[in-house]
């Protein structure tokens, strides 16, 4: 990956080749720097009194990048050798900038102090600048407020295929800025623009980057986006068995994300959140029917389990989830509970594809926001494994598709990336009545959340009660 910095003064107050002093790199030498991920080379393609260009060329070692992390969480994702890291200007280049031009970044230049303190006519060229989630427009929004004139052109992702623009721009920044500020801008904003998997040399790099931007970040109009993206990159990557299996099917990592993530809808935060209302509604139903042994099918990280354990009326609580990863999280959260609370709860991996005879011991089975994650042709299996158990009560909640209009979703758009369907109230009722009839249950419906006169409530709840035979 490449970065060039060109100084072309309009006056002859100083020669352009003074760029060498400012960068602490002699224009007539070729210097190599260990940049952690590979070797950075600083050289000058041109250097004259009128115009000088310093180039920073970073050669990433893609094999070391993969093999160096053999035991790390990213060791086995397929894309590693096939990777834009050797080409795109990413956090790796930011690290190289820091290592190659550390003194220049501080603004110190003993031999040309006045130049270091001055705003100079600079042109910076980043030929493969990442622009994920935002494109050329985002590049402008990030650099223009800092005083740059931005020329950002995204080529097609694949010529001849109708795949839209590439997630990179050929970026040229021109402006009059202090060199130290210019370097600081690149150092902080290149990783923000990259917004992809990062290969931080060390975890503390994030903090260093933010500190580096102290002078200008506070007043930057996109400050929120900049800090958000840093924080987002701290997440660890999915890298367990599920991700490996997804890779087998040539799926991208996002497709293997747990069902719990990937929410499209941001629920309003100014009143009781919907998920709290849903929890309250479900607990109220369970108390009303006098359930004591409750199994939460699709317990996720255990929100309902903890609520159930807080009420001693629920003597036995079983959490089942298809994802071992979610169960681990639930397990860790339950560790904080008292011994007597923990004694009432059991966690187990399971799925609606497979029946579980142990469910027969429970009075109430919960299917909270679960059915919409099941392919519609598998609902018959779900029905057999849940209602075939003949528990006294089954509580099912699912989104009300009609209400999506209030969230501003287009017709047919789903609230969550892993939802396989979302039902209207009548679709849900049709399904529920059919199930009830086939398995000997009575069913009643409740709305959960703020009701709209026409569209109903955001969540719909069905309470199934087994009929005496």
């Amino acid at each position, binding site marked *: 990956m*490449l970065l*060039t910095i060109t100084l072309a003064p309009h006056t002859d107050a100083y020669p352009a080749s003074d760029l060498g002093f400012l960068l602490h790199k002699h224009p*007539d030498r*070729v210097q190599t720097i260990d940049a952690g991920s590979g070797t950075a080379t600083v*050289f*000058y*393609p*041109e*250097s004259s009194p009128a115009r000088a*260009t310093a*180039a920073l*060329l970073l*050669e990433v070692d*893609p*094999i070391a990048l993969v093999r160096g992390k053999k035991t790390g969480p990213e060791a*086995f*994702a*397929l894309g590693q*050798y*096939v990777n*834009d890291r050797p*080409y*795109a200007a990413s956090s790796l280049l930011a690290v190289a900038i820091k290592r190659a031009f550390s003194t220049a970044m501080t603004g110190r230049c003993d031999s040309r102090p006045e130049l270091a303190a001055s705003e100079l006519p600079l042109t910076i060229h980043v*030929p*493969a600048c*990442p622009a994920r989630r935002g494109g050329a427009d985002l590049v402008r929004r990030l650099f223009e407020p800092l005083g740059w004139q931005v020329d950002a052109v995204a080529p097609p*992702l*694949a010529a001849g*295929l109708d*795949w839209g623009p*590439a*997630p*990179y721009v*050929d970026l040229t920044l021109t402006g009059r800025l202090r060199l130290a500020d210019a370097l600081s801008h690149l150092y902080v904003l290149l990783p923000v623009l990259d917004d992809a998997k990062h290969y931080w040399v060390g975890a503390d790099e994030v903090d260093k980057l933010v500190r580096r931007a102290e002078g200008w970040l506070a007043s930057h109009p996109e400050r929120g986006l900049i800090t958000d993206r840093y924080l987002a990159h701290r997440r660890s990557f999915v890298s367990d*068995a*599920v991700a*490996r*299996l997804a*890779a*087998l*099917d*040539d799926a*991208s990592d996002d497709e293997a994300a747990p069902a719990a993530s990937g929410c499209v809808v941001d629920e309003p935060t100014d009143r009781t959140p919907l998920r709290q209302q849903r929890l309250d509604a479900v607990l109220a139903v369970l108390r009303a029917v006098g359930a004591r042994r409750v199994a939460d099918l699709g317990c996720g990280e255990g929100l309902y389990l903890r609520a159930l354990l807080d009420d001693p009326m629920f003597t036995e609580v079983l959490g089942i989830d298809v*994802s071992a990863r979610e169960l681990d999280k639930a397990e860790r959260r339950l560790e904080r509970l008292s011994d007597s609370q923990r004694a009432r709860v059991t966690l187990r*991996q*399971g*799925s609606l*594809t*497979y*029946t*579980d*005879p142990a469910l027969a011991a429970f009075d109430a089975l919960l299917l909270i926001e679960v059915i919409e994650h099941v392919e519609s*042709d*598998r609902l*018959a*299996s779900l029905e057999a*494994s849940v209602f*075939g158990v003949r528990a006294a009560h089954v509580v099912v909640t699912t989104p009300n598709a009609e209400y999506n209009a209030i969230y501003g979703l287009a017709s047919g758009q789903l609230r969550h990336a892993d939802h396989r369907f979302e039902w209207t109230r009548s679709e849900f009722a049709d399904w529920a009545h059919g199930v009830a009839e086939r*398995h000997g249950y009575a069913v009643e419906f409740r709305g959960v959340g703020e009701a709209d006169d026409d569209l109903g409530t955001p969540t719909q709840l069905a309470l199934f009660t087994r009929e005496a*035979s």
Partner: protein
Amino acid sequence: MTPVRIPALSLVVLIGVSGSGKTTFAREKFAPYEAISSDACRALVSGDENSQEASGDAFDVLHYVAGKRLDRGLLTVVDATNVGRDSRAALIKLARDHDVLPVAIVLDAGLDVAIERNRNRPDRPFGDGPIRRQQAQLAKSIKHLGKEGFRQVHMLRGPDEIAAASIVREPLLNDRRDLAGPFDIVGDVHGCLAELLDLLARLGYAVQRDDEGRPIDVSHPDGRTLVFVGDLVDRGPDIAGVLRLAIGATASGHALAVPGNHEAKLIRALDGHDVKRTHGMAETLDQLAVETPEFRAAVRAWCYGLVSHLVLDDGRLVVAHAGLKEAYHGRASGRVRAFALYGDTTGETDDYGLPVRYPWAEDYRGRALVAYGHTPTPTLEWVNNTICLDTGCVFGGRLSALRYPERETVSVDAARVYFAPAKPLVAPATRAVDELRIDDVSGRRSIETSAMGRVTITAEDAAGALEVMSRFALHPRLVPYLPPTMSPVATSRREGYLEHPDEAFAQFAEWGVPRVICEEKHMGSRAVVYLRPARRQAHDPGGAVYTRTGRSFFSPAVSAELVTRISDAVCAAGLFDELDTDWLLLDAELLPWSVKATGLLREQYAPVGAAALLALPPAADALAAAASRGLDVNVLAARTQQRLTNARAYDEAWRRYVWPTDGLDGVQVAPFQVLAAEGRTFATVDHEWHLGVADRLVQVSPDLFRPTRRTIVAVTDDASRADGVQWWEALTEAGGEGMVVKPLANLTKLPQGGLAQPGLKVRGREYLRIIYGPDYTLPENLGRLRDRNLSRKRSLALREYVLGLEALDRLVAGEPLWRVHEAVFGVLALESEPVDPRL
């Protein structure tokens, strides 16, 4: 020698005071580990075998170990004094809990002998008192042992008799594993003699008659044995005639029978108990009333002599009237008998006042075939290797038989309705056949394969597979097979190459495989095509085309269309007829790769090319400018130029995997192996045949199917090998992905045991850029990449291969879904193991 006859599976309780010689007896008369001593258990939990304060824990251990042994069907001897009634009661309960017979063997060496022996044992300093007390306790209870629940009580008195006793183990009455059949198992007859004779004729039996022309015996020219599942009596028109035939045929050994609930009730009626004449009992009693008293006595004796269930053919077949769960096979207890006669009930009653039957067969996971009757059903249906043969003949249905081991059913229609059913004969509509249970797949498992013994699946791998199978895959019914991973060839040392055909040929030569077939590796996704006749369920798509992890390639509508097109072609090619099948499972490649991998191509492959072609030209230009200034950047400039060339090659490489498709337009299928059809697999049929089948499909439908180019190489012939190398070079230089080298004969056993790899892939030099990165060919990279370990991949490939074969074998054998799915799930679980995905 005093023979002590005990049931081969029983809980033997030794009873005798301290010093009566129980431990010696147990050691001399039973096999090692058969006897569990309370003293040993005391020592295990406390370190001291005489520690009385540890007795509670010691007996817990004893009961636990004895229970585990009984679960496993092992005779177990309890070596403890057992002179107290409480201790014996606990053991009788233990035996009943495991459905084995409790047997008491009392060792009465004599008080003096016992006292004398204890005095000579320094570790028992407790004096004579305890022994006298034990003897008194024993004397008090000895008469009541039978009443306590022991099914047999053996008394051995005096040291000589104890020493001379010899244990004789007798098989249980239900244990007829020695009978191998073949059998014809007949469902509930209920006095329908005409239909029975009709059925017997259909089955090929000759009927022997008495002087009055009444059937009294049967015989089959092939020596087959008839088996009645019970309920011969009640309701029907000629109950006495059916009984006469059954009694005669069982007496001659030409037939076997188990009792039904109606026979059990008849015994009570014949014994003079007050039995309601309902459910058809009136017919029986009326018909028997006109028979002789001798005949009635014979009927009573015959019914009484029937054993609750029969275990036949080395344990592979179990016959019981109402079915039998696996834990009860070959066991004897009140509840085993009750289950066999009446089945399992939920404790509820239905709208007709009849008990609701618990569908035990859905939970059945045993290896033995269970044939039963009892519950009238309109259709004969296999559920988890069980079959109910009661097709309601007396209610105007049919009389049915199962031919074993053929597993074929034969039915004859009833002449008329003889008895009105209490409720209409309908199959439960909502019952899902062969539902899978969570414990069919979760946790650590060991899967027995016929090709390579046990394959172990770790709990962690199973957990990953469970999620993928549940969240993304098609229903397991539509996924009866998953393809194994394939290992690459050993790494080449040839300059500029990571993989080369030479190593493949050398490897197969080393394995003793004389001829291999090199098959073009298609540039698509592995696909399994499952064509099957549409079943009763309305939503059944009639087949599936799915990926390596069981996902459908297409939406249901498009998938159904593809299945139909492939099915039509298979039909037009005459394959269904030729293979005498109405279903087919094909191994194939589906093209283009972009059908499945568009996300990956757009998010990963295309951006890398775009970034490289943005970054490298300016870098090359900058270096050229620097060089022209006289700076020493020659090495870097040359390398950057080379990287630019590599990036362009890479960009071309992935582009070959993309072509536009619209629905099925542009989609092609390249079948290369027939996996299974009705009754058979094709794992040992040579690959030329398989590709010949593929060629015929291509001929029928050249747009839909794509041929697989191939060449055959004799691996020990230099010229042939050179031709093979040349073929590969031409293929890959023209942009092909590479080839797969397989033993021509297909499944190949190695002389030293084990199997040869079913195939080794040799990938093209350019293709590998999209695996190892555009610059993998740079010498400094290639050198490092050659350091790759294939052994794990090879081992996985073989384990997955045999699991796949196992799944196919189970599928064609008509085994229940859970058995097929176990092996399929195993493949997916192994695929979740962390292995370098570039291999």
